[in-house]
């Protein structure tokens, strides 16, 4: 394809590189501030003559990182497996078994696809209070599973709609029931769709902020994003520590992202196309 002229391609490259630089600059600026001596007033981007890597250790203690990691993982462990499982089952029921009246259930779910969390957070708060679950991780876990259902079921249904019915019929001749059919044939086939959904739900849960600050006062029982909000409230005036802590809190996500980078990008692209 030699259609694009040389100058066009060069200017395109330049644009792309500029975009990459602009994307990275805030992170670099944070890093440079995080390495300044404590108690100084840092400026935008200046490499310190004597980088204070120990600031990260201070921030680790100040942010109580160990407890935060554990809390976030507990919440993810509560939301993601159950969310993925019941969404896959529902997608199977609606897309493959085609239950009678399934389109009504599906329409009901579509209603929630564009729903801003802010619209339901107030009654959710009172609901959780009445259940006695405020200030526990359940107050984040349970609503999140429900709130993710529209997208998750939509996603899994789209997969199961495209699975040919003959596949199940052949297995039925062998005498397997629907449950066996689901686990032996359909779940393995749906693995790519399930993997993408798992990644998206993990990311959204880890980064969930609104529910975390509404439902739970104790930062060590929140999601990572919620904890970061509390950290800013507490250390907002100590810029060096704030930057070090924020970078630290970002690291787990970044590591997971870099490891599963291809899957993440695929999931995010597909996720936005469907959502």
């Amino acid at each position, binding site marked *: 394809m030699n259609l694009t002229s040389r100058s066009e391609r060069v200017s395109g490259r330049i644009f792309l590189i500029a975009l990459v630089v602009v994307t990275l600059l805030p992170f670099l600026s944070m890093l440079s501030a995080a390495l300044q001596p404590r108690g100084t007033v840092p*400026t935008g981007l200046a490499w310190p003559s004597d980088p204070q890597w120990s600031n990260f250790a201070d921030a680790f203690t100040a942010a109580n990182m160990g407890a935060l990691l554990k809390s976030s993982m507990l919440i993810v462990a509560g939301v993601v497996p159950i969310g993925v499982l019941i969404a896959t089952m529902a997608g199977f029921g609606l897309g493959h078994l085609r239950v009678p009246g399934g389109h009504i259930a599906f329409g009901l779910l579509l209603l929630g696809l*564009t729903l801003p969390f802010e619209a339901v957070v107030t009654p959710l708060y009172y*609901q959780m209070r009445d259940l006695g679950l405020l200030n526990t991780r359940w107050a984040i876990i349970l609503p999140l599973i429900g709130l993710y259902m529209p997208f998750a079921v939509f996603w899994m249904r789209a997969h199961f709609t495209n699975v040919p019915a003959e596949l199940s019929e052949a297995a039925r001749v062998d005498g397997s029931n629907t449950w066996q059919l689901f686990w032996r044939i359909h779940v393995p086939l749906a693995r790519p769709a399930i993997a993408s959904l798992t990644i998206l739900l993990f990311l959204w849960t880890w980064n969930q902020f609104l529910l975390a600050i509404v439902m739970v006062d104790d930062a060590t029982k929140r999601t990572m994003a919620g904890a970061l909000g509390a950290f800013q409230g507490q250390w907002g005036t100590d810029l060096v520590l704030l930057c070090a802590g924020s970078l630290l809190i970002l690291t787990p996500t970044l590591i997971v992202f870099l490891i599963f980078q291809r899957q993440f990008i695929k999931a995010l692209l597909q996720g936005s196309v469907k959502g």
Partner: protein
Amino acid sequence: MTSALGSVPAGPGTATRPGGADPARPARRNRRGRPTRWIGWLWVLPALLMYGFFVLRPLALTVQYSLYRWNGIGPAQWVGFDNYLTVFTDRDLLKIITNAFVLIIFFSFIPVVLGLLVASLVRRITTGPGGTLVRTVLFLPQVIPLVAAGIAWSWVLSSNGLVNQLLRAVGLDRVTRPWLGEFSTALPAVGVIGTWIMLGLCTILLVTGMSKIDPSLYEAARMDGAGPIREFFAVTLPSLRQEIGVCLTVTVIAALASFDIVYISTSGGPGIQTTVPGLEIYRLAFSQRQVGLASALGVVLMLLVLVCVLPIQRLTRGEKP
């Protein structure tokens, strides 16, 4: 696709086009035993129960609350549509709703326009290590919590931050200011954070769409003597309609329902200069104990999102053959 009842969908069976999921699609006639069909509801039930209890019930309650004056503790007082009247007449609340629409310019239009520019120049991102690096970096803002983006940019836009440092370096000392703290610049400054978050996603979506366009279309356009600009409007823009629709949908929802970034970077200030509906709902419900008014604003926000997103969907999907 639905006409081939019972037979294997031919050809694009595994294609995951969003258009393939049509809610109005009739349930396929089943050739197997009837009783299994109703039992199938058991598969859907767990998801529906969670959705019903944690989304539909609160949603119904929001609508109910919105018709009362209630402080969250004492008895509630029926006020009919008074809360909605307040939402649409109160100066501050109208300003807050307008703020969300201003953010759409920064969250949606700028990323889509810049993304289109890059896409039409680059055409494709190489599959080599350089391309992977570009993709990875451009996706970073999508992966980190919005809270982190808010903290990073509060620092970048502060008095001693990077933006002012760069301005000073080129001799524009007079322009420097605490961007998030001044009345005139606070809202656009918050918007810039949104642009930063959305730009990478839009660019990659659009470039990916771009690489799927048949090169012969461009060849034909060149043969007809079309310049780059005619080419853009005749070939690129129509071919990318679906991708543009996706970008707009995602970013418009993010703008209207924004909360995290604003809460972290400005808390809605100075004054109510950067307050958005999401933040105001939070404040009304949990600090000012005006649960009814907060709920009415919640209902309005939900409807605003629908009113903005449905036409975009229609535009990009409805006319597809």
